[in-house]
């Protein structure tokens, strides 16, 4: 799988408030600016950890889809994945990393800044 582009995963710090909305939109973290990945990060932000099946049920998605998006977040080091056996049943558990939590906070700030910028313009 292709590694995620660093420029995409780590957006530039926020510049002045006077920047137009279009310019701010270009700064968005593309790694979490996608519904399934944003859902994974948001769900993990309020839980210590969640299993693959819990995330799948919560986000109403398929195994393949969740797997692909979770892998992208893992590659970007936004989530940490742990695989283990519970009895004979294999489990995959995800946790949000510090980088993932920062990315979500930055993303939320971006969204709020976009709303402010479009109101001001």
């Amino acid at each position, binding site marked *: 799988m292709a590694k995620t582009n660093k420029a995409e995963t780590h957006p530039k710090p926020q510049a002045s408030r006077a920047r137009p909305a279009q310019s701010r939109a270009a700064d968005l973290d593309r790694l979490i600016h996608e519904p399934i990945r*944003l859902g994974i990060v948001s769900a993990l932000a*309020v839980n210590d950890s969640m299993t693959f099946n819990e995330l799948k049920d*919560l986000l109403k998605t398929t195994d393949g889809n969740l797997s692909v998006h979770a892998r992208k977040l893992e590659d970007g080091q936004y989530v940490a994945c742990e695989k283990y056996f519970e009895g004979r049943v294999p489990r995959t558990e995800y946790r949000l990393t510090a980088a993932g939590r920062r990315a979500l906070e930055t993303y939320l700030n971006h969204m709020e800044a976009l709303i402010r910028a479009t109101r001001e313009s």
Partner: protein
Amino acid sequence: MKPAKVVSINERAFENLKFIRETMERAGSFTAVPGWGGILIGASAVMTALVSSRLPTTRSWFFSWILEAGLAVAIGAWALIQKARAVDSPLLYGPGRKFALSLCPGMIAGAVLTLALYQQHLFAVMPGTWLLLYGVSIVTGGAFSVKVVPVMGLSFMALGMIALFTPFEWANWFMAAGFGGFHLAFGTVIARRYGG
């Protein structure tokens, strides 16, 4: 061909923030607490208070409330499963599981204490103990649910503390006010604000 709908950056940002908030709510708190179930439990508790106030012995009073507890558990479980299905909130894992497990310690403590108090014929402290420990269960379970649930638990705890220091003659009033009145009042709030 229909032209594609143009969505402004502002609208998209709002939608994203809404999506994040909703996902966090669904992932972090158990929203399937049944309001209508609470109302039914409250109504049955008021009926039990009326019936038990006319019973001739303390022992029959005790068993009428034990019967009511069984009925309330059955109504609560049925209503919980129905609402969890309706709002698509899982019961066996995540916040649903935490909610259920957090309810248990207070309930188990209440059941064991009831047995001990019954053996010692200490009926007078039962209403206060029941209200207090039920409140504790609701507060702990409510930590994983919507805000009104722990508030309901605290109300039960406050009433239980008062009931512990009042004469047994007032028992049915406290039971009717707590298990009846609080369930009816908070059940109505939950049903109105949180979808049934």
